[in-house]
Structure formats: C-alpha cells, structure tokens
C-alpha cells in the first residue's frame, strides 16, 4: 500500500492541476494562452499570453546548457579516460558537493557575485541590470554540471575496455580514442544525461526567482530581466490569491504547462537510457 501512494501522488498532481486549469481555460481561451505575447494576469486589464514565461524558461535553460554541456562533458571525459583512480576518487565527491548546494544559495551567488561581475565584463550592447537572464542561466548551468558530468561519466565507463584496446591497437592516441570511440559509443547515455539536465533547468525555481527578476518579458536578450514559468508560480503563490479567482487559477494553468513539459522531457530521457542499455547486450 505504500507503493500505491506514489501512484496516488501522481494522480493527485494531475488531478489537482487539472481542475483549476480547466476552469481557467474556460475563462481564458487556449488560443490566447499559448499565443498571446503579454503576460499580465494580475493586472486590472488582465492579459494571458503565456509566451513570455515560456520564452524566458527556454532562454535561461539554453544559457544553462551552454555552460553545463561543455563543462560537464569535458569533466566526464577527464574523469573517465584521463584521470588516475586516486584523482577520480577525489574529484567525483567534489562534483557531488556542487550538486548538494541548495538552490537558494545559488540564487544568492548569482545576485551578489555573478551579476555585478557580468555588468563589469559585458562586451556587447547594454550591460545587464541587477536582474538579468544571463547570471541566472550561468549559475544554473553550474548547478547542473554535476548531473551531466556524473551521468555522462557513467555512460562512458560502461563502454567496454575491449573497444578502447581495439582503437589503441590501431595506433590511436588517447584523444582519438576518447573522441572517436568512447563518446560515440556512450552517446545515448550522454544525451540522456543532457536531457535530465534540461529537465532540471526547466523546473528550477529559486535561482530564477532571485536573479532573473519578476517581470514577464518576451525577449531573447540575455541582459534583460524576465520571469520564467516557475518564478511566476512562486510569485503568484506568495501573494495570497483568493481561491477560485482567475489569479489563483493561473498558478494551475502555468503549473500544468510546466508539468506536462517536464514529463515529456523525462519520458524521452527514459527511452534513451533504455536504448543505450541495449547496445551492449
């Protein structure tokens, strides 16, 4: 019966989201929700286009990926192919340390350290203000590095040594073995790791709430402040919305969008992991 609880939880999430979501969409058309470009649900003249929230989520996730994929992959290659066991025993827990830091702390770091730094180093266009997408994205990327690195390294370690030996016997250098044999062989696992990183980035709340600001803004300029889906939900939830009000329902509408999005991403990653396990019967 305990296990059934987990099923119950999923059902509960779906159900709890569904009710208010449906009534929300009854009042505000689906069309406007998904195509409208202005998100101002709590204003007197409420507008309900969710695109600004989605674009913010996408942009910040993109920045995070631009940081965490190279750093994560290169770290994984180093750990798996180049480092000695003693070094690895020291580095892997270090990466885990990064993973254990609470997101609110990362938010603090983004706001008080990265933002001013970026303002000083910004090279093109207007320097970003205190709240901007770039510092949130960069710090989020750093937060996700352990996830990507650890899972990629597992995937690479699973590549049989016989393949590496075959490549070495053909006169390959370590670099060539790593890039031409190991990474392609571990590719499904690596992609699964990245997809998991995406799902974490999309669902992350505190960093963006603190560092990216609370103004919905349909923009792809990383120097701008903007509000993601998660940040909106948090902001709306902090203020007490009367039950049943449209404001209250927006929480659920955006929440549903978020839930469905991450569910899809997660299902893709599970399929990929299964596929990479099949390659080595």
């Amino acid at each position, binding site marked *: *019966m*305990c*296990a059934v*609880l*987990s099923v119950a*939880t*999923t059902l*509960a*999430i779906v159900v*709890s*989201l569904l*009710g208010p979501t449906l009534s929300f969409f009854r009042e505000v058309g689906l069309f406007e929700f998904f195509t409208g470009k202005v998100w101002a649900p709590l204003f007197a003249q409420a507008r309900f286009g969710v695109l600004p929230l989605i674009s913010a989520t996408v942009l910040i996730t993109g920045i995070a990926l631009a940081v965490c994929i*190279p*750093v994560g992959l*290169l*770290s994984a290659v*180093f750990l798996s192919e180049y480092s000695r066991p003693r070094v690895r025993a020291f580095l892997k827990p*270090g*990466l885990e*340390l*990064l993973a*254990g*830091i*609470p*997101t*609110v*702390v990362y*938010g*603090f*770091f983004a*706001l*008080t*350290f990265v933002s001013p730094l970026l303002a000083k180093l910004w090279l093109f266009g207007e320097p970003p203000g205190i709240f901007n997408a770039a510092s949130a994205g960069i710090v989020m990327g*750093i937060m996700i*590095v352990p996830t990507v690195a650890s899972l990629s390294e597992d995937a690479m370690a699973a590549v049989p040594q016989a393949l590496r030996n075959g490549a070495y016997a053909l006169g390959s*250098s370590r*670099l060539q073995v790593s890039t031409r044999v190991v990474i392609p062989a571990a590719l499904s696992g690596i992609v699964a790791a990245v997809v*998991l990183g995406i*799902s974490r980035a*999309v*669902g*992350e*709340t505190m960093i963006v709430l*603190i560092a990216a600001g609370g103004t919905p803004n349909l923009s792809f300029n990383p120097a701008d402040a903007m509000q993601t889906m*998660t940040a909106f*939900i*948090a902001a709306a*939830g*902090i203020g*007490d919305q009367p*039950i049943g009000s449209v404001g209250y329902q927006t*929480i*659920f509408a955006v929440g549903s969008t*978020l*839930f469905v999005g*991450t*569910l899809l*991403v*997660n299902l893709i990653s*599970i399929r990929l992991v299964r596929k990479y396990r099949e390659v080595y019967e």
Partner: protein
Amino acid sequence: MTPPDASPGDLSSLQRRRSVATTIREAGFKSAMLGSLLLAATALVALMVQVFVTGSPRLNGDLLNRFPSSLPSRAGARSAIFGTIWVIGTVAFTCVPVGLGAAIYLEEYAAKDRWYNRLIEVNIQNLAAVPSIVYGILGLAFLVRGPLKLGQTVLAGALTLSLLVLPIVIIASREAIRAVPGSIRLASLALGATQWQTISRQVLPSAVPGIATGTILALSRAIGEAAPLLLLGALTFITFVPEGLASPFTVLPIQIFNWISRPQDEFRVLAAAAIVVLMVILLAMNGLAIWLRNRFQRKW
C-alpha cells in the same frame, strides 16, 4: 593509397613525430578539460568564500537567538532554525516508513512482470523528475486549501516535502535491499522462516546502512528546499518558534530568500550568515552519510 607513415623500413617514423596541428589539438583538448574542472572548482570556491566573507559579521549568537525583524540590526533566524528542525523531523517520521514500505514491497513482494508493478516503477521515476514547485502546487491544492484543509502549518509543509523526497528514499532503499544477496534469503527460508521474518530479521538489518544513507541524503535535499514551501505560506513574517504540528512556520532557506529580497545591504549580510549555517548543517549531514556508507558497507 598507402598511409603516409607505414613504410616498414622507415624506422625514424617510430619517433615522436606529431604534426603541429596534432600537437595543438591535443594541447587544446587537455587545457579545455582542465579548464572545465577549474571553472567548476572556482565557482564552488568563489561561492563559499563570498558567502562566508559577506556573512561573517553576523555569524554570532544573535542569529540563533533573535527573531526576524524589519530592523536588520535586531534580526535573527531563530524561528527559521527551529522551524527547520520541526519540519525535517516530521519529514523523517513520515517519509521513512512509507518509503521503506514501498521499497520492501517492490523488491520482495512485487512480481516484476505485472503491469501495475511496472506502472509503479515508472511512476516513481517520473516523480523524481517533477519540478519541486509543482509539489508546492499539489500541497497548496490538497493540503492547505483543499480537502485536507491543514492550513499553512508545519504538518502541511512536512507532508509536501515528504512527497518530494519520497522517490529518493524509495530508490536508495531498493538499492540497499537489492544488494543483500539472494543466498541469505534462501538460507533463511530454508530454515522455515516466513517471508516477513526473513525480511525483518535478515534483509533489513543488512540493508540498514544503505537505507540510512539514502534517508540522510533525502533529508538533506529537503532541508535546502524553498520553492514548494513558498506556496505553502512559509514566507510570512513568523516571529515565534513552532508550537506544534499545527503551527505556522518558516524554514531556513525561506528566511534566506526573504532577506535576499530586502533592499537593505544589512540584510544581505544576514542572508549570507544564515547560508553559512545552512551549509554547515548540510555538510555535517552529508559527511555523516558518507561516513556511514564507508563504515558499514559490506562487500558481499
């Protein structure tokens, strides 16, 4: 087309003869790898240093003894610290039995080919990937306002967090139980013990270190969570220690968030100090988990 180097008589080709391009490529790759690691390490160090330096002026007893106030010089985190203790304690009580029960069921009793069991497994994996704030929405809808009407209380917050970390406990416990070799189970059953006796007397005791480690990791995740609790009303101005499960509350991460959102610089210092406290607690918990794992890990 003969490959350029392979002329058997040309022995000089055995010597180091990398073209410039290759050398640059190799050096570039190596520096990229080390650079990545360095970046991650630097970020970690910068974060810790910055937090510590910023927060050190206020790292004193006031933090523990005073309650939040709109005057930074008089503010402390007493309510948040005790709130955290209350909430995490309750989480431990609720999610460990449930998680363990689920793990035992899945590993020992469930037939792996039944569709409903596989559904449960997939389900748990999905739940582990759901954004934390969605759990907050769930808590809001069901526990605070909805059917259970618990209000903005410690119990509501703890239950929500329990649901959040339940997958972690289940997965870790399953691994621990799975690691106990089947031969031990068989031996116990062959001596006439029932399945439950086998589990309670043989399997579980051997799996305790793994289960404990998993629990500690789950709890340390729960301590750092802020997003779901935002939706549950933990961000209100709480100036008292929780009086019971039905009491309003706040937790350390939320208090940190609160202080970060204030404009005055003094509050930044307070936030950093509170972060140091939080990180120390986390470090201690993770250290405990690692120690447990190393000390009691049995190699079968």
